[in-house]
């Protein structure tokens, strides 16, 4: 027991040390700080998808909808309402999270493929709204004319726009807060009911757990996390376009979660690192980068169905 706990703490310490030191070691491997920020933001998205997929057993194939609404929410706020990076994040999180909560109420009775289909449909509705409503969203050209703002802390001001390292640490703090909250929820009595539903919905129901209500809450929480990631994404790029709402991006998040290991908490982070770094590297070599990632996914799903982290766990347990 104690050995298990110690090794878990060591792994946690290693993960955070690697993330904190990333701006210093990444250049050694040809990386750059903005890539690190991108990894963190997409990893948070993948972990939000996995919060639902890996721990409640519910596959949403339209989570880009809440990610994209988060991005547009942050963009609208920074462009028209308030020149503040944290307020932009708040606005995006609320827009995507509330929309997800309201629409989530309509899908809690659906299961499996039907749940996934309805989530895709919701996502595409928002995609076409963003695409068509040019006067507000900028249409296909995307929402431009906003940028992340310096962070005023009272005693000092941090320039997030021009200092890539400063923005990386801003993203890292946001990531840590969101991921910490996720871990906290999963260890709570409520989190245990999510896992109960994943493991056996009928048994959960016959223990007196109102399954639909709990799936709805888990879905809503996941939407808020997702929208938060989307808002960070808008501030990362100083830009939002309809592709952040498209189901192709939803698919990317699912791929990151499955590749990394969807029954594990940190798996999607690993999946996001592999996905984003490969995408960055391969897309500079060939326009057909997606086919290489596709082959990798097929290999992982065929040979390591529990994902990369699942494989590492198995090895270390054996």
């Amino acid at each position, binding site marked *: 027991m104690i050995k298990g706990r110690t090794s878990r703490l060591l792994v946690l310490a290693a993960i955070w040390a690697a993330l904190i030191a990333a701006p210093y070691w990444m250049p050694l491997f040809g990386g750059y700080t903005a890539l690190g920020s991108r990894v963190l933001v997409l990893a948070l998205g993948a972990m939000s998808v996995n919060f639902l997929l890996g721990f409640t057993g519910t596959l949403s194939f339209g989570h880009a909808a809440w990610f994209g609404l988060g991005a547009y929410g942050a963009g609208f706020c920074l462009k028209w309402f308030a020149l503040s990076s944290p307020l932009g994040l708040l606005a995006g999180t609320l827009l995507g999270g509330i929309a997800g909560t309201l629409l989530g109420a309509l899908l809690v009775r659906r299961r499996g493929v039907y749940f996934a289909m309805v989530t895709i449909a919701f996502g595409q509705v928002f995609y076409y709204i963003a695409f068509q409503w040019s006067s507000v969203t900028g249409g296909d050209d995307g929402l431009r004319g906003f940028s992340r703002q310096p962070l005023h802390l009272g005693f000092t001001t941090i320039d997030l726009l021009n200092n890539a390292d400063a923005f990386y640490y801003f993203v890292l703090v946001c990531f840590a807060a969101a991921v910490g909250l996720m871990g906290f929820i999963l260890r709570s009595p409520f989190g245990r*009911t999510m896992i109960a539903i994943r*493991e056996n919905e*009928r048994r959960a*129901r016959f*223990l*007196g757990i109102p399954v639909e209500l709990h799936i709805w809450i888990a879905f809503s929480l996941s939407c808020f996390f997702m929208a938060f990631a989307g808002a960070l994404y808008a501030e990362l790029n100083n830009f939002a376009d309809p592709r952040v709402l498209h189901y192709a991006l939803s698919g990317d998040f699912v791929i990151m979660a499955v590749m990394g290991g969807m029954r594990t908490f940190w798996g999607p982070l690993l999946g996001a690192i592999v996905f984003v770094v490969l995408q960055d590297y391969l897309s500079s070599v060939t326009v057909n980068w997606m086919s290489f990632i596709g082959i990798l996914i097929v290999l992982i799903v065929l040979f390591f169905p529990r994902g990369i982290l699942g494989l590492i766990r198995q090895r270390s347990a054996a």
Partner: protein
Amino acid sequence: MNVLEVKNVSKRFGNLVAVRDVSLTVKKGELRAVIGPNGAGKTTFFNLISGFFPPSAGTVIFEDMDVTDLSAQKRVVLGMARTFQITEIFPELSVYENVRIGAESAAGFRLRPWLSAVEKSEIRNLVDETLALCGLTDKAGRLVGELAHGHQRATEIAMALTLRPRLLLLDEPTSGMGDQETYEITQLVRRLHRDSNFTIVLIEHDMRVVFHLADFITVLDQGALLAEGTPKEIEANPAVQAAYLGKAA
């Protein structure tokens, strides 16, 4: 006091009448066995009691309250717990975690973001007590999915017990088990009935188990009530013998 009153329930699936006009009354502290040949409608009857699906006709009354239209989940909250013929557990969690989920749900903690130290120790005590009662203390840390069938079934019963049910429904608790496992589960059910005074309704096909345990027996045949009485009366009933031995009589 009557814990359960089932009045004239029927269940139709299309043209098939799975349960036809069956009534049943179970008193507090009673252990009732429901028996019958394969296809007699025993499990369907159980599903009507536990709210798995609603009856086509008739009423189900639990502790003087009409629960006919309530969902299964609401009936559990009222104090009706059940196990299934094919064990329903959380296979990738440990025995302890399985039982804790039941305990936390029953304590009304299912939506809580955290528990106080007192609440945590209350839950731990309830889980430990229940595990001891079901003979699972030394298996607490094992994954349920890796255990022998008998221990999985005992875990399922332990989960139901954490709900502190005033009616416990056991669907073929010894199905698919060897002699030793059957003996252990029978002893467990006996302890729950004799020592802990649970009101229990169980479906069983193993007649040794039934005649050993039950206060009263209800016999179903082709969806209808065939006979009802003490084990002695049932044993001597010619209609029951005919149903079990064939249609010759």
